[in-house]
């Protein structure tokens, strides 16, 4: 049996190679990034007027001020630049935000089944957004009329959705945590209750809504990236910048949290601060996404789960990979949604649920053993 040296600790020669899983995780990140770039080019080309990848690239480089030999027609430029690219980028941003939010939430709840849509957090964001739409006539007009509140209009919806998402997260986290532990069954039941409650109040709002408001409200239920323009992107980017840049930096913290709060604290983690960061940043990511594209289910739980199977559970890998993977999956799903029954469109929520629900069931059955 090995024994300690009497004086200073002896160490074996440093191992040259990283453990295999860590190096595989790095390869996966690169693969995901390359796949995402390709998907952007393909997505911007696909549609009623197909544009070859080379021409898409030509448009992009031209807009960036680079002259290339890649040829494209003015009509192609108009379609790619004004219509497709905003939508592709919206899918990338929202997909990344939802993938990250899901991975971070699973780290916080210490459970692979935690997901913003299952736990009622998206529903909380939707409720707040619907409330803003319905109450807009009365309440918002007053707020917007205040001096210096000119910009409130564009941000009212995402900020309200952020508030709704934040409150729902806090509620679920507080209620499902007993004695420092989150019980899966309690967590999922609280999620059902939150979904039901938020849905019921949203239903109440639809009663008092006008026809025009009803049409906007229906949109939240299904989710669509159809509203993408450069101005909507300009609204979304500042809201998502914080969670997209900050959440991937919490990998070490969430790894430590997997040991339990007490042990994490003994390893120097400021547990309370990390929890508030995760709750606030995921609420911002989910709230801003829901406000822009409606509730898109299952993505935040499907993507991290698949990535954990491929590259291991280390959050330093899972978080950035979930951002890339979420962007990739949502972009592909949206490209499919708008091409498969063209010229009509499938609601994107239907596609993600078709993909996600079977995986969810599979995890439940597998962990039940």
């Amino acid at each position, binding site marked *: 049996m090995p024994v300690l040296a009497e004086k200073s600790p002896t160490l074996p020669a440093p191992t040259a190679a990283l453990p295999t899983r860590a190096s595989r995780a790095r390869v996966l990140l690169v693969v995901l990034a390359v796949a995402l770039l390709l998907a952007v080019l393909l997505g911007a080309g696909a549609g009623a007027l197909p544009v070859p990848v080379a021409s898409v690239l030509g448009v992009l480089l031209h807009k960036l001020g680079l002259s290339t030999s890649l040829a494209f027609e003015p009509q192609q430029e108009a379609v790619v630049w004004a219509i497709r690219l905003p939508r592709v980028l919206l899918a990338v941003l929202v997909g990344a935000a939802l993938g990250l939010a899901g991975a971070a939430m699973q780290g916080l709840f210490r*459970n692979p089944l935690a997901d913003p849509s299952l736990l009622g957090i998206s529903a909380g964001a939707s409720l707040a957004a619907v409330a803003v739409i319905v109450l807009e006539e009365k309440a918002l007009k007053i707020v917007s009329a205040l001096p210096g509140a000119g910009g409130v209009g564009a941000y009212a919806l995402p900020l309200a959705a952020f508030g709704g998402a934040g409150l729902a997260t806090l509620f679920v986290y507080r209620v499902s945590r007993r004695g420092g532990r989150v019980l899966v069954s309690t967590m999922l039941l609280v999620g059902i209750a939150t979904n039901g409650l938020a849905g019921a109040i949203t239903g109440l709002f639809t009663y008092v809504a006008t026809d025009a408001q009803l049409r906007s409200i229906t949109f939240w239920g299904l989710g669509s990236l159809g509203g993408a323009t450069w101005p909507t992107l300009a609204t979304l980017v500042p809201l998502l910048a914080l969670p997209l840049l900050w959440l991937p930096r919490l990998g070490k913290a969430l790894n430590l949290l997997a040991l339990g709060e007490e042990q994490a604290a003994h390893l120097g983690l400021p547990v309370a601060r990390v929890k508030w960061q995760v709750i606030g940043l995921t609420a911002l990511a989910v709230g801003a996404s829901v406000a822009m594209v409606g509730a898109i289910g299952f993505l935040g739980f499907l993507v991290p789960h698949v990535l954990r199977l491929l590259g291991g559970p280390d959050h330093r890998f899972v978080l950035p990979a979930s951002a890339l993977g979420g962007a990739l999956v949502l972009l592909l799903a949206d490209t499919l949604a708008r091409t498969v029954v063209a010229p009509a469109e499938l609601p994107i929520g239907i596609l993600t649920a078709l993909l996600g629900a079977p995986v969810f069931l599979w995890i439940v059955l597998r962990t039940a053993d």
Partner: protein
Amino acid sequence: MIANNLSYHVGSKKLLHNVSLTARPGELLAIVGANGAGKSTLLKLLSGDLRPGVGEVLFEGRRLADWPPAALARRRAVLTQQHALALAFQVRELVLLGRYPHFGGQPTARDWAVVAAALDLVDLSHLAGRAYPTLSGGEQQRAQLARVLAQVWEAEGGFLLLDEPLTGLDLRHQHHTLAVAHQLTRRGFGVIAVLHDLNLAAQYADQVLLLRQGRAVASGPPAQVFTPDYIHLGFGIEVELLIHPSLGYPLIVPTVSSHP
């Protein structure tokens, strides 16, 4: 590490009353006592999981609450009784968690070397690549021990707090764990461990603190604390002390009838 007059109560129930202790680097301090005597409560107060109602805990002359968490984590590691792990980490990834207070972004080759050495020390090198949840209870316990060892590996005069580190271990690894703890004290570490087996405590501890109903009954070297009178007071059982013929350790043998 010094604890002064610690008291702790939940509601009107006093779990710990006026307990003081001093643990020095280079010594293994065993906390013993019957079930419910307050051993784990005392360790939680020493580790900072609980805050004493009265009294204070000093570590290296500084109140525990005044330590920045990250700095404390580099000097002192705590092994609690719960070994749940929410993620299917490999054993070496689990042990690497102990190095987190020491590196910023990516672990260095030295961090991995410490992980390897800590795994070697607890006799788990052959399972380094296994998923933690697939280990047996005793192997999980040893993997967690490797994690706290890796945490304070290079801390001169650092401290280890172990709450019942032998639970679920086989005879060989019970002795091995305490032998590792003993060697650490020879390297200048301080170790405080809650132990159940008095014979093991007698064999490995430098100091013993005997608790009974939240109060310190006796403290000092094993030979002073492990007397039939004190053990009867602490555990309510009659014992005889035998001296091991060749090793010289006291052997504590209950004299109750096996057919009451």
